């Protein structure tokens, strides 16, 4: 069906809604990355199998929906029953028959699958009452987990493409740019450049051709916000890009997706085909005379290709190395033509801004960082997963209210924001509002939205070493400060971890970091020393403990720790069984002993001991 105008779209939207409402109940099975890895596809099949043989009023096979990520990955696989919003967590294949029988047929709850805060707490039945969800606000993730990403009808029923129709028929391109500027939205990819200003500068350059590029090369370890949007709601990205194309006058767009996201590639391709078929892409979009089309471009797995200029080179078929940006991409980008490059989350947010208005969006968040931001919450926090919160929320609220606090109720030590080139913030920064400027001021950055929580068993020097290692591996190797400088910084950091560094080495690291920051060619190099700089700023005493006392306070750096068994030992033999080098000896019910010469300090005994009998010294 070709939608040739706003009236036909409205009519189609009504039809899509009616079709959806025909089913009394909906079963949403999460097929996001986490749940899928735990076998949620089998749960989906099982629902179909069980329901096929049953005849239930108002429930058909269409009631079973595969959706994108629901966010609460720690409790996956997740199944949600609508319209009640019943939330079942850690569902297994053989729970399905029971869910169908009790919840779908009789309207009863399967209590053991409900969410509980703690083991002995009362179960919470509904989605909206669970603390993890209660404190969130979803804009870019509005449809993720709610709709079947393969069905354009689901997207349209939820108001999809209405913003595009509104822009194409009711606004001039300059008015669209004005609205985006007024909303105050800043690039969600990490830099935080005002999106409206970017679009306006691109539109102001005289040129026959210009391009729109969506950056889906999400490379930060532990970050999966963009992945979930591309997999779970691909049409929102397309709609944002089409609106941008209309605003700046582009005819051609690219979505650059990393090869490691095969499902995102498939779902985007399907979405593009469906959008073309219905007249949202291609010639004469929505009968307005405006032409625009999108191609998907797959990246080869290089972190640096998430950097805009390297990405554009990669799209053009060249080696993905950054160039100096003294001449900006909005002037000379892809194929030397004016180009707007925005991140997945930014584009997914645009339709909502057009739909609900710039003022509405600007009223959310803080004055200089408006709207909401998606984060992937990971590390030693209880509720790991995908979240979206209004800007300006404190780190504490994210970690303790949404995240539920630290695993095993251990002590919080640091939170890393902004991915590998971001920084680690200590406990006294927990009240910091999460917005672009506050995070940068504190020595970290917003980045694309990875958030890794660390507990007291983390060594901050080891953390810095780990992330520096990642950056050394991922440096493209073009410019000297990044290629040679980060390599040497990592080498010095390893020396600290091994207890071989001196205070002169620490001074050298600080001097070197400053040069890498100022002299590197691209953002990767310029932010490369951040893992070291932020940890040395907030956890200097830990560095000094490694250097002066040859101790690792976190109990992580193998060269500086020893494991010992104290008199809490019950003689259970568990550590003897788990030791890979047979360094532990002892008899049943007698205190075991570790042979320090044989011990490789792997920590297996420490992890397995149930009686706190293994100590790190």
């Amino acid at each position, binding site marked *: 069906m070709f939608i040739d105008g706003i009236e036909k779209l409205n009519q189609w939207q009504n039809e899509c809604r009616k079709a959806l409402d025909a089913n009394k109940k909906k079963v949403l099975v999460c097929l996001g990355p986490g749940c899928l890895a735990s076998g949620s596809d089998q749960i989906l099949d099982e629902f179909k199998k069980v329901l096929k043989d049953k005849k239930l009023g108002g429930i058909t096979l269409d009631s079973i929906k595969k959706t994108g990520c629901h966010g609460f990955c720690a409790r996956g696989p997740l199944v949600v029953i609508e319209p009640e919003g019943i939330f079942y967590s850690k569902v297994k294949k053989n729970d399905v028959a029971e869910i169908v029988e009790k919840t779908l047929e009789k309207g009863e709850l399967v209590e053991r699958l409900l969410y509980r805060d703690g083991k002995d707490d009362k179960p919470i039945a509904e989605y909206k009452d669970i603390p993890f969800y209660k404190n969130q606000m979803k804009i870019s993730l509005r449809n993720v987990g709610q709709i079947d990403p393969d069905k354009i009808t689901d997207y349209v029923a939820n108001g999809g493409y209405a913003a595009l129709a509104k822009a194409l028929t009711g606004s001039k391109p300059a008015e669209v740019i004005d609205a985006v500027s007024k909303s105050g939205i800043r690039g969600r990819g990490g830099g935080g450049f005002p999106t409206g200003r970017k679009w306006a500068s691109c539109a102001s350059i005289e040129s026959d051709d210009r391009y729109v590029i969506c950056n889906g090369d999400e490379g930060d370890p532990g970050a999966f916000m963009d992945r979930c949007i591309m997999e779970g709601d691909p049409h929102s990205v397309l709609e944002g890009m089409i609106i941008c194309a209309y605003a700046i006058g582009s005819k051609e767009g690219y979505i650059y997706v990393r090869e490691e996201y095969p499902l995102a590639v498939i779902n985007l391709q399907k979405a593009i085909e469906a959008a073309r078929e219905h007249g949202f892409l291609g010639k004469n979009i929505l009968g307005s005379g405006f032409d625009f089309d999108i191609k998907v471009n797959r990246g080869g797995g290089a972190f640096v290709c998430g950097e805009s200029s390297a990405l554009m080179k990669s799209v053009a078929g060249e080696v993905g*190395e950054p160039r100096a940006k003294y001449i900006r991409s909005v002037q000379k980008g892809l194929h030397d033509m004016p180009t707007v490059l925005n991140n997945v989350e930014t584009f997914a947010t645009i339709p909502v801004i057009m739909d609900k208005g710039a003022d509405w969006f600007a009223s959310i968040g803080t004055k200089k960082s408006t709207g909401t931001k998606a984060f992937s919450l990971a590390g030693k926090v209880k509720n790991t997963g995908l979240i979206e919160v209004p800007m300006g929320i404190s780190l504490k609220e994210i970690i303790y209210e949404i995240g539920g606090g630290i695993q095993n109720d251990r002590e919080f030590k640091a939170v890393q924001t902004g991915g590998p080139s971001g920084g680690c913030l200590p406990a006294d920064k927990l009240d910091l509002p999460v917005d672009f400027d506050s995070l940068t001021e504190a020595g970290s950055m917003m980045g694309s939205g990875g958030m890794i929580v660390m507990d007291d068993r983390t060594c901050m020097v080891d953390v810095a070493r780990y992330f520096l290692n990642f950056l050394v591996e991922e*440096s493209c*190797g*073009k410019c000297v400060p990044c290629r040679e400088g980060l*390599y*040497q910084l990592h080498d010095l950091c390893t020396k600290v971890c091994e207890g071989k560094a001196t205070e002169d080495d620490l001074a050298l690291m600080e*001097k070197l970091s400053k040069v890498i920051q*100022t002299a590197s*060619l691209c953002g990767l190099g310029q932010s490369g020393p951040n893992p070291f700089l932020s940890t040395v700023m907030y956890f200097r005493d830990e560095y000094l403990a490694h250097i002066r006392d040859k101790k690792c306070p976190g109990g992580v750096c193998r060269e500086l720790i020893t494991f010992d068994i104290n008199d809490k030992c019950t003689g259970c033999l568990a550590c003897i069984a788990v030791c890979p080098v047979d360094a532990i000896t002892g008899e049943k019910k007698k205190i075991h002993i570790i042979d320090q010469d044989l011990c490789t300090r792997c920590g297996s005994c420490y992890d397995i001991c149930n009686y706190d009998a293994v100590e790190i010294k």
Partner: protein
Amino acid sequence: MVHITINGKVVKAREGEMLLSVIKRQGIDIPALCHHEAIEPTGNCRLCTVEITKEDWNGWKKHVTSCLYPVEEGLIVSTHSSEVMEIRKTLLDLQLARCPNSEYIQKLAEEYGITETSYKTRPDADNCIMCYACTRICEVLGKSAISAVNRGHDKVIGPPFGEEPPDCIGCLACAQICPTDVIEWSDDGEVRTIWNKKFDLIACKKCGKTIITREFADYLIEQRNLPPEYFDTCDDCKRTEVAQKMGGLVEAAKEVTL
């Protein structure tokens, strides 16, 4: 024309011209390892970094690589400020750790007061400073037979898959542009070897001296529309031939006037 200030002196420059060429025209010496007139600048070595500001920047300044920075009216440039010197020193210190045996780097580092690197030297050090001059000149020649492969600290310059580069024509441009003479090649009688690929050399039909590889000759004949027999004789023999012809003409002219 625009006016910029370099180290306190106001100078004229063409709009859009790169800052480095203006600085060099003033006779100011700043190192630029990856810069070469024949190729596009890329900003790999970062040594030509300078400090820039403008009157209306309210004291804010930034560091840019002058080889890539187009000049603009009112730019105020310092080429040897203390911060710039610190950057160059550290960069050379790092280069010296990478190429401890390169005399070229040793000499430059010494000019900046570094005789020994502060960092760990590369165990398998060669003299390649990764300036990409070789790959860029190969690209300019239209061949791109070699490129930078791998990434980060493991990056090396080489032919595809480490095999004989299929597109190489043995022109030696890469070896000749290399500032640290890393690229090995040899002319052994009638055979030239570079990147492990062997090329037959054309010998001058008159004097027998070797001129150029067959592949390079064919490429030039095709690209520049030269006569197919152009490389049959060497430049020396061509000159002799022309001189002889000219001599003959002079004799003939004398006879006519007499």
